[in-house]
């Protein structure tokens, strides 16, 4: 444990040095501001000079600018013919440069390196590579877009490659967007908010109920999804409705290569971002599936609700899900529940680079649960996120968790550096 603390100290020191090197000097920013102001002054001067040779030209174009009382009229309002021609000549080049070309592939990567040490019997401390995650986005036309996400996962015998998301979407308008592919199932909040990029989330790990490779909720979904805004004024309602293959024969995986029964799963998610309370989101989801396990069928109902405040002063995330399984043959029904509450706060000091956080999570599965194994958990994490730069963060966490009644309480120290590139 002393070694762990030494490593922690060294990493913290390194992070501090990195911060010292990466912080932009205020003076430099001020100089850039002054230069920009100077550029604007020069632009105005050029416009004035260009306008001089034809002072009597018409101002027909100005009619498109509504009258702005008390607003100083722009110097170019009496736009001369020469100035206008000059603009027209230059305009296509600039506009052409900024025009979207199809396809326009953008690739972004996410990665993390972790260190873990716990007092769990039989566990060993050490470093491990997290997921290397590549995200692809490409507009194929004005209304058709492709999104993909591929992860490389370290295993004892090498690396596995996983297609996490593979989506093609057609946007009709803001109210109706239709897509096909492999998704993160829109149940609750976390699963569709942070995906696999550890840098995006405040904490080192996902809550247990939405753990990658976990079974409590189906993390992935293969099928089609309709989504969009709902005309609702200030309520800011949006929806996702999807139909697809449900859980596969390995319950943690979706039916990528086909469903294992003739029953399609469906999911519906509705959420609100009230305009009056910028940063607030609340929503509810339902998911329905039929699971076939070793010849036995189960009906699955998942209901979920979430309430989040996405601003960072404070950040508040809370999510609850109930998973109901009913054996078709015996009609025996079980209910498992899980929830987490996470609170973080971006401190105003150190150029707002520090964000302490706390999360409590709880999962209960009854002994009579037949579809997945016991997942009981009561756990807390306490940590600090330190943003080394705009695109890299260092996180340190203390975790305390307890699984079953007979299981010992486990304490652990976890470190992570997460980044996007």
């Amino acid at each position, binding site marked *: 444990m002393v070694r762990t*603390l030494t490593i922690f100290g060294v990493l913290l020191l390194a992070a501090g040095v990195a911060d010292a090197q990466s912080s932009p000097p205020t003076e430099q920013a001020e100089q850039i501001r002054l230069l920009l102001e100077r550029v604007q002054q020069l632009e105005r001067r050029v416009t004035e000079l260009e306008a001089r040779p034809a002072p009597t030209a018409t101002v027909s*174009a100005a009619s498109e600018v*509504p009258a702005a*009382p008390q607003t100083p009229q722009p110097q170019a309002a009496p736009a001369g013919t020469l100035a206008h021609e000059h603009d027209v000549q230059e305009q296509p080049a600039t*506009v052409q440069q900024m025009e979207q070309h199809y396809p326009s592939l953008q690739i972004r990567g996410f990665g993390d390196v972790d260190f873990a040490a716990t007092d769990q019997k039989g566990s060993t401390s050490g470093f491990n590579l997290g997921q290397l995650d590549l995200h692809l986005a490409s507009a194929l036309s004005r209304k058709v877009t492709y999104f993909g996400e591929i992860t490389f996962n370290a295993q004892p015998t090498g690396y596995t490659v996983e297609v996490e998301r593979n989506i093609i979407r057609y946007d009709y308008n803001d109210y109706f967007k239709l897509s096909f592919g492999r998704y993160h199932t829109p149940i609750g909040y976390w699963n569709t908010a942070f995906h696999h990029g550890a840098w995006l989330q405040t904490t080192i790990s996902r809550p247990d109920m939405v753990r990658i490779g976990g079974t409590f909720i189906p993390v992935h979904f293969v099928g089609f999804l309709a989504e969009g805004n709902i005309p609702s004024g200030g309520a800011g309602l949006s929806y996702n409705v999807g139909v697809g293959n449900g859980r596969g024969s390995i319950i943690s995986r979706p039916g990528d290569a086909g469903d294992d029964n003739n029953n399609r799963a469906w999911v519906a998610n509705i959420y609100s971002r009230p305009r009056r309370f910028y940063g607030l989101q609340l929503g509810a989801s339902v998911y329905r599936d039929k699971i076939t396990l070793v010849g036995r069928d189960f009906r699955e109902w998942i209901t979920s609700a979430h309430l989040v405040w996405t601003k960072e002063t404070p950040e508040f995330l809370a999510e609850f899900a109930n998973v109901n399984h009913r054996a078709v043959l015996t009609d025996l029904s079980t209910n498992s529940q899980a929830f987490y509450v996470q609170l973080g706060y971006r401190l105003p000091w150190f150029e707002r680079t520090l964000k302490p956080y706390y999360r409590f999570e709880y999962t209960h599965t009854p002994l009579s649960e037949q579809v997945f194994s016991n997942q009981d958990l009561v756990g807390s994490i306490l940590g600090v996120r330190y943003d080394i730069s705009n695109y890299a963060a260092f996180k*340190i966490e203390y975790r305390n968790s307890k699984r079953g009644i007979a299981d010992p309480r486990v304490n652990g120290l976890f470190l992570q550096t997460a980044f996007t590139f």
Partner: protein
Amino acid sequence: MNATTKCVAAVLLSLILLFVTFGGRSSAQTARGGTDIAVVIHPETPVNDLTLSEVRQVLLGERQYWNAKLPVVLLIRAPVARERDVVLRVIYQMTEAQFKQYWVAKIFRAEAASPPKIVYSNDMQYELVSGIPGAIAFMDARNVRPGLKILRVDGHLPGDKDYPLH
């Protein structure tokens, strides 16, 4: 092991307290002031008046179409420009870092295909807004030129007493 656990917890808590107590570099608040920032759009865009929360919805990428045929094209000034400061402070209510992270996350969530386009000067901004249908940008009201449509925000134009973007 219990003693070690307590030790680790104490180190964490001490660190947090240390940061809270002796946080050295405070984020300097720059003096605000100056002229209003006009919301300008391509003249053929079928919108004249938006509330501030509707402008926010557009800038957050939650509204991506003016109508079924006309997508929104977001233009935003490069860092350090005053227009950008006002947009980040009043509309996004984010720091520069939060703004960058927001758009990385937005694209990662497959909610948008690309971030706002960066423009480096008023001339460039003027050319793009007047040349790209659906374009929306923010410029110092003194620099608005003919050929652009100025949006009313909450019913007010730049220069009005209750105009929110300044």
